[in-house]
Structures are given as C-alpha cells and as structure tokens.
C-alpha cells in the first residue's frame, strides 16, 4: 500500500470521527440552545398548563422520578439474583455463554413490545388501568438484563485469588457470595443501575400504554387507575402537533430537562465505568 | 564513518567506553568496513526518567553480538532503538544517533529501516492465517520482490529457519496449529523472508523447550554467516555457544536517575572467562548462583 493511500485511510477515519462529533454537537447544541431560554424557576415548579404548552413540568419530572425509582427497586434484586446464579451458583462454562447471549437478546427486546405486554397484563389483565406501578415494573423489566450483564462482567473481572482464598478457608458458596463477591462488585452494580435508570428515564414506549397520561394527573394515589405524568411522554405527545413559538420553547425546555436528567445519571456512573473499562483493555 | 577499532585493555573503569573490539580473527577484513549497526551517545528518556544513557555500541556484520545484563537494565529498550520501534511508544525522547551500515536511520523512512532490521520477540506472535500467509506477510507489503518469486522465497525462508521439512506438506494449515517452538521458527522465517541485513533477537528461546532452543541456536549460527545479529539473552550458556561478541548492560546512577549504560564489550568467550568490568563480573556471579 502506498504511503499516500495509508495516510488517506487514516485521514478519512479522522473525518469519520469528526462526523460523529458533529452529530453530537449539533444535537446537544440545538437542544441546549433552544431549551435554555425556557428555563426559569417556574418551569421546574409549576405544573403544565394551557393544553400542555405553557407552564412548567413539575409533575412530569416527579412522575418520571417515581417511575424510575420503582424500576430500580423492582430490577435490582432480580439482577443480583441472575448474576449470582450465573457466576457462583452454576458456574458451568456452557452456561455462561448461553446466559450472556440470552441476556443480550432480552436487552434487545424492542421497548414497544414491553409496553404492549404491560398493556395486556397490567392494564387489562390485572385491571390496574394506567398505573404508575405497572409502568415502573415494565421499566424495571426493560433495564434488568443490562444490570445483570454489568454485574456479571464485574464479578468475572474479580481476581480469582479472592475466591480461591475464601474457598480455601472453608467458606460456603453463600458466604463467599455475600462477603467477597457482592462487596467487591458493588461498583459494577452501582454503575449498571445508574445506566439502567438513565435509560428508563428516557423511554416512552413502555409507559405509553400502561402508565402515562398527558394531563390530569399529579401525585398518584393508590394503585389502580393512578397514572402519572412523565417527561418523555409529555414531549412525545406535544411533538406530534403543530404549535406556537412559545409552545415550541416549552417543548425544547422539557427535552433539555430530560436530557440533563439522563446525562447526570450516566455521568455519576462514569468514573467507575471508565476504571473498569481501562482495566480490561489490553495494553 | 569508519570508527577506529579500539582493543580495550584490562582497566576496569565502568564509564561508557567505546565498543566493540574487532574480533581477532577477522580484524583484516572488517577493520575498514562500516559496522552493521553503530550507536553514538544513544540515550532514551521516558516522561523525564532516563532509561538508557550514553550508549556507544558497534555491531559488526556477519557476527553475533550477545547483549546480557540484569533484568530492567534496558536491553529491550536498546534493541528497540536499533529498528526505530522505540518511536511507537508514547512519551519517549531519544538522543544520540544510530547508524545502519554507515547511514543514520533517523533520516530514512522508518518502515524501510524495519524491513532491513528484523526483530524476533520473546513470545512468538502468529497472525491469523495459514503458515504460508504468515511467512509471506511482510514480503507482501515490502514490495521488494515480484509475486512470482514468492513460492521460492517461501521455501528459502522456511529452509533457513529449519522448518521447511516439517511444514512443507501443510503450508495451507493455520499457523496456530504449530507447536510453540515451531511458531518461533515460523516467526524467524517470516523475518528472514524480507531479507533483512540485521536481525534483532529479544530472548528468542526463553519461552521454548530445550529441543527447540537448540534448534534455534543452530539456526542463529547459520544465519549469522550473511547478516549481523544482536541477541539479547539471559542464558550465559547460550551466549557462549552462539555469540562472537559480548556486551553487558547495567543500570548506573547518573544525572536524572539510574539508567542503563554499557559496561563491557568484547570477544564473547574471552570476556565470559575474564570479565574486565565490575558490572559484568557481578552479573556473571549472580547468574552462576
């Protein structure tokens, strides 16, 4: 290969990276630029008004927080259970590949299908109607595989000598799991959970059918027929209609709030993830 | 660029002395030819810390130079300077000059230098693909020979590495199916296929079993008949069996911190029996223990 062809190749890879950077900058720049003018204290403390284009997004934010909190509570025990089962309690080699493949597939399930499933089971089957709990459980189901994978990978990255030392001392598997594995891999669980929350906060389709309404809801009371407002759904509905310039500003503001929420959740997890990632990268 | 050959006498000052002595037997024909590889005041620092300092080394053509010394002295670093591989590491600063047959390698194209100065690593590195693919790998990109000559060069390179008979019937099989000893000889064939004038061997047998080690050592003697070879080795026995010249590297304190310096250089067997520097004597002691 000629010298110039080689340099051309490297140069075009740089152009590709630049293109990706451009997409990121345009997206973030537009959202921030158009959304910031909507920010004032009232935006965060007032409920929405005027068919949704005026006022603030208070209850949308609260609703989103309720949903992701529920999702976290529902998904964490299940994720820990799956991870422990796959790594400590059944450590046969074929099982690992199968388990990871299954988890990746579960993670890839389109969220709209999870939403429809919830529609069938929660809204109609259990008769809850649109309910914050149903939405939270669905979101929890959606983020469960990713959390499990993050924990499994973290557990497998533990140096074997910790486990060998513990077993050599005569600990049972349960004791090893509790005192060695879980304690050492809490970081992985933490970052996996945060990333799951970030994803759950931004998803529309699961809550579209089973939890969210556009207006007429505040803090939910009880379980049945107690929907919530939610940021993604709010944006989704508003985006489908034509609107006035003021309404457009409100819309961008809501999008910016959502983006900031998702970004902060991801960024908190960042240091732990970077450390783990660089540890596993070959020199 | 001919450096006057200096025969070093007994005096044991550990300062970086001019190196190496011209071997007694061939003084006549090599005295006036440029050395295959020559370094002048070669120094390397990494992020401010010195790794090598003031290396003046001379490697004669068609001779084997064994580079010995304690771990961490900088032998691999020195080797990487000779084919400009050191440049690939970030944060490295190099001073001094390295000459290849009289020409400074810094002024030449780095890839061309690496074709002329081949390298073998401690662990054999096999590319995915067949045995033939591996041997011809460098040749395909070197552009020094027409495709038509490849089969002949393939056989020649494998023959020089004493691998031809073992693999001639399975050239299309994956290289990964070879044993470790065979893989290292495959790497040797691959390096030889691009017809380097100098070969750098970084502890090529330390990962191999005794039988493969012997096979490679025999090959080194053969290959040295038409090339210069620099061999980093931890085994004094290997140096004794294979090398003409011996150079010893050790860390010494100096400006900036301890760094590798050249302490001795001369005819191999003679220096192994009668070391002329404290550092080499100490190293020999520690190896015998």
């Amino acid at each position, binding site marked *: *290969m000629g010298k110039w062809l*080689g*340099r051309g*190749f*490297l140069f075009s*890879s740089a152009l*590709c*990276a630049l293109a990706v950077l451009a997409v990121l900058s345009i*997206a973030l720049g537009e*959202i921030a630029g158009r959304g910031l003018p909507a920010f004032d204290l009232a935006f965060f403390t007032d409920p929405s008004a005027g068919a949704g284009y005026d006022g603030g997004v208070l209850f949308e934010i609260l609703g989103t927080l309720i949903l992701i909190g529920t999702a976290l509570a529902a998904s964490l*025990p*299940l*994720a820990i*259970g799956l991870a422990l089962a796959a790594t*400590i*309690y059944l450590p046969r080699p074929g099982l*690992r*590949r199968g388990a990871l*493949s299954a988890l*990746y*597939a579960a993670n890839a*399930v*389109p*969220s*709209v*299908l999870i*939403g*429809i*499933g919830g529609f*069938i*089971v929660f809204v109609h089957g259990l008769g809850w109607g649109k309910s914050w709990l149903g939405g939270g459980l669905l979101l929890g*189901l959606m983020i469960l595989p990713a959390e499990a994978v993050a924990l499994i990978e973290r557990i497998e990255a533990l140096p074997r000598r910790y486990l060998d030392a513990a*077993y050599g001392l*005569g600990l*049972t598997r349960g004791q090893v*799991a*509790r005192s060695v594995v879980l304690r050492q891999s809490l970081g992985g669980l933490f970052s996996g959970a945060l990333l799951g929350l970030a994803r759950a*906060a*931004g998803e*529309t*389709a699961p809550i*579209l*059918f089973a939890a969210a309404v556009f207006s007429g809801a505040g803090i939910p009371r009880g379980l049945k027929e107690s929907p919530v407002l939610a940021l993604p759904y709010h944006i*989704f509905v508003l*985006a489908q209609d034509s609107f006035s310039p003021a309404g457009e500003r409100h819309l961008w503001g809501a*999008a910016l709030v959502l*983006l900031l929420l*998702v*970004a902060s959740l991801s960024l908190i997890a*960042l240091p732990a993830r*970077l450390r783990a990632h660089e540890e596993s990268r*070959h*020199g | 660029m001919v450096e006057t050959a200096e025969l070093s006498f007994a005096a044991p000052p550990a300062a970086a002395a001019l190196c190496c002595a011209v071997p007694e037997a061939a003084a006549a024909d090599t005295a006036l030819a440029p050395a295959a590889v020559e370094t002048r005041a070669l120094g390397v620092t990494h992020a401010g810390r010195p790794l090598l300092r003031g290396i003046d080394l001379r490697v004669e053509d068609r001779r084997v130079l064994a580079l010995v010394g304690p771990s961490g002295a900088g032998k691999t670093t020195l080797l990487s300077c000779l084919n400009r*591989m050191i440049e690939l590491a970030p944060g490295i600063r190099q001073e001094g000059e390295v000459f290849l047959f009289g020409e400074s390698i810094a002024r030449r194209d780095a*890839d061309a230098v690496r074709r002329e100065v*081949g390298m073998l690593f401690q662990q054999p*590195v096999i590319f995915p693909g067949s045995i033939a693919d591996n041997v011809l790998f*460098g040749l395909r*990109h070197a552009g020094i020979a027409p495709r038509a000559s490849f089969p002949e060069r393939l056989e020649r390179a494998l023959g020089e590495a004493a691998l031809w008979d073992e693999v001639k019937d399975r050239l299309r099989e994956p290289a990964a199916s070879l044993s470790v000893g065979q893989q290292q000889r495959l790497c040797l064939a691959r390096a030889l296929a*691009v017809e380097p004038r100098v070969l750098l061997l970084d502890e090529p047998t330390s990962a191999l079993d005794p039988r493969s080690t012997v096979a490679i050592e025999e090959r080194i003697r053969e290959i040295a008949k038409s090339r210069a070879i620099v061999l980093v080795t931890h085994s004094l026995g290997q140096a004794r069996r294979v090398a003409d010249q011996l150079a010893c590297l050790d860390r010494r304190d100096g400006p900036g911190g301890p760094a590798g310096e050249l302490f001795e250089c001369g005819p191999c067997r003679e220096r192994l029996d009668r070391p002329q520097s404290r550092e080499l004597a100490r190293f020999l002691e520690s190896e015998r223990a």
Partner: protein
Amino acid sequence: MKLAAHRSAAGAERRGRRPDVLRLAAFGFSAIAIAAFVGLVAVFAVEAWPFFRAQGISGLFGIRWSFRSGRFGALPMIYGSLAVSLISVALAAPIGLGAAVFLSEVLPRRARIAAKVGVELLAGIPSVVYGLLGVLLLRDAVARLLRPFDPISGDTLATGGLLLAAMILPTVVSLGDDALAAIPSSQRRAARALGLGKAETILRVVVPAALPGLGSALLLGLGRALGETIAVFLVIGRQDNQWPERLMALEPLARAGQTVTSKLGGSETFLAYGDPIHWGALLALGLLLLAVVAVLSFAGSWVSLRRVPRG
C-alpha cells in the same frame, strides 16, 4: 485444587448444613426474571393465536392492511422497517467503524477516554429527544433536500433512515472500538517490526482479526434500528399501504411510510384491543419483530462470543 475447594464447598452445602438463604433468593429471583420474559413471549403468542388460527402467518404477508375489511397485509410495513433500518446501517457502518478505527488506533490515550465519554453521551440521548430533533429540524432539511422527488412533506422513509443512522452511530462506534481494542498489541508490534506502516497494520492485521466483533457491532446496530419506535414514529409520516411499485427504487424512500414499530406504537393498538382478530394481527406483527430482533441478537452474540471466554 481450586475446583476441589469449590466442589467441597458445594458438597458441604448439600450435606445439609444450614440452608443457604442467599442461594434460594438468587434462584428465586432468577426464576422470577426468566418467568417475566418468557411470560411476555407467551402472552404475545396467546393473544396472537386467534389471528393465526383465522389467517395463518401468511395473513401478514399481503400488500394491504385494512382492518375494517379484515385484511392485515403487513408487507408495506415490513418494507418500511427494512428500508429505514438498512439505510441507517448503510450510513452508520462506514462512518461509525471509521470513527472506531480512529478512536482505537490513532487517538492517544487521554483523548480516547474523552472521546468514549462523548460517544456514551450520544448513546444516552433518549429516542423521544431524537424524535423531537427530527420533527423540528431534520424534517425541513430533508424536504428541501428531496425537492427533486417532489415530496409532500419532510416526513419520509428517508428521514427515518437518517435519524436512525444518528441513533445507532454511538452503538457502532462503541462496540467497534471494543472489538478493535481487544486485539493484543503484540500483533500490532509484530506487524510494525516487519516494516508495515500504521495504516497497513490496521487494515491487514487489526481489522481482519477484529472482524467477528465488528460484524457483531453491525448486527446489534441493525437490531436496534429495527426495534426503534418513538423517533421513527415521529418522522415517518405513518402512511399505511405504501407499497412501492419497484422494490429497489429510490423514489418510494422520498415518500411517507410505515414501519412495524410505528404501527405498533400508534393509536390503532389501543383501538384494536376488543377485536380478537385485529388485536391478534397486531400481536402477530409484534411476534415477528421479536423473532427477527432475537435472531439478530443471538447471531451477534454467537459471532463475538465464539472464542473461548477468558477464565
């Protein structure tokens, strides 16, 4: 020796010491999680059954979807899904893999970390926000761009493809970078020592060795594109029965269309609940989507997990 220690720990448990609560909990929770996913599939299958019994799966492979007349031909939607997803992969693959090469092979360490953070940020942008960007920005730009094709509006399949390309870009870059970085540096060193230049080393050693991982990155990106609902919903026009006269033509891409996901995410799903056949048809469509995405995911896993896992 290690295996023996593990086995004796398991044996001690089996010999009836105090039951391990954590073990019970782990298996219990795992069972719940597995049951939830299996249950999801089962629910879909059960609800789709009336449709399968009435029309069989070939009922979906017609050209016309008109639930009022009992026709549920989903081919235009399948075409829409494929068109939009393939456009997005065709755009995101070269750009994303090129950026992955740059990230993994060219950038110095600290810049690479910063770049990975940027890519993660891009990946975290919710799809509804991408949808908003599509609605308010991309739509008009595409309408202007496609003027030669005389589009009615900017809501077209092409718009969906472009938007999806931006959405799967971070996935492709990140997974591609992981695949390239997993190739040991000893391979690169050996190639450079033979006299190969940087670009040659990348193209002849690193990329060929990383092909399984790169292929898996593309498969997973395609799966993500096929499953994306909200962003596509907002910019695609949601026109049913847009079956192109010529399949491989470019012109249908400049018109509005429908994908499987945009149909499922729309209001028709709410309305269809009472009618078993109509509802069954929609769920059958969902099962089809699920099957395709699952196959792509397993193919991607098989390709990249094929090597014996470490440890």
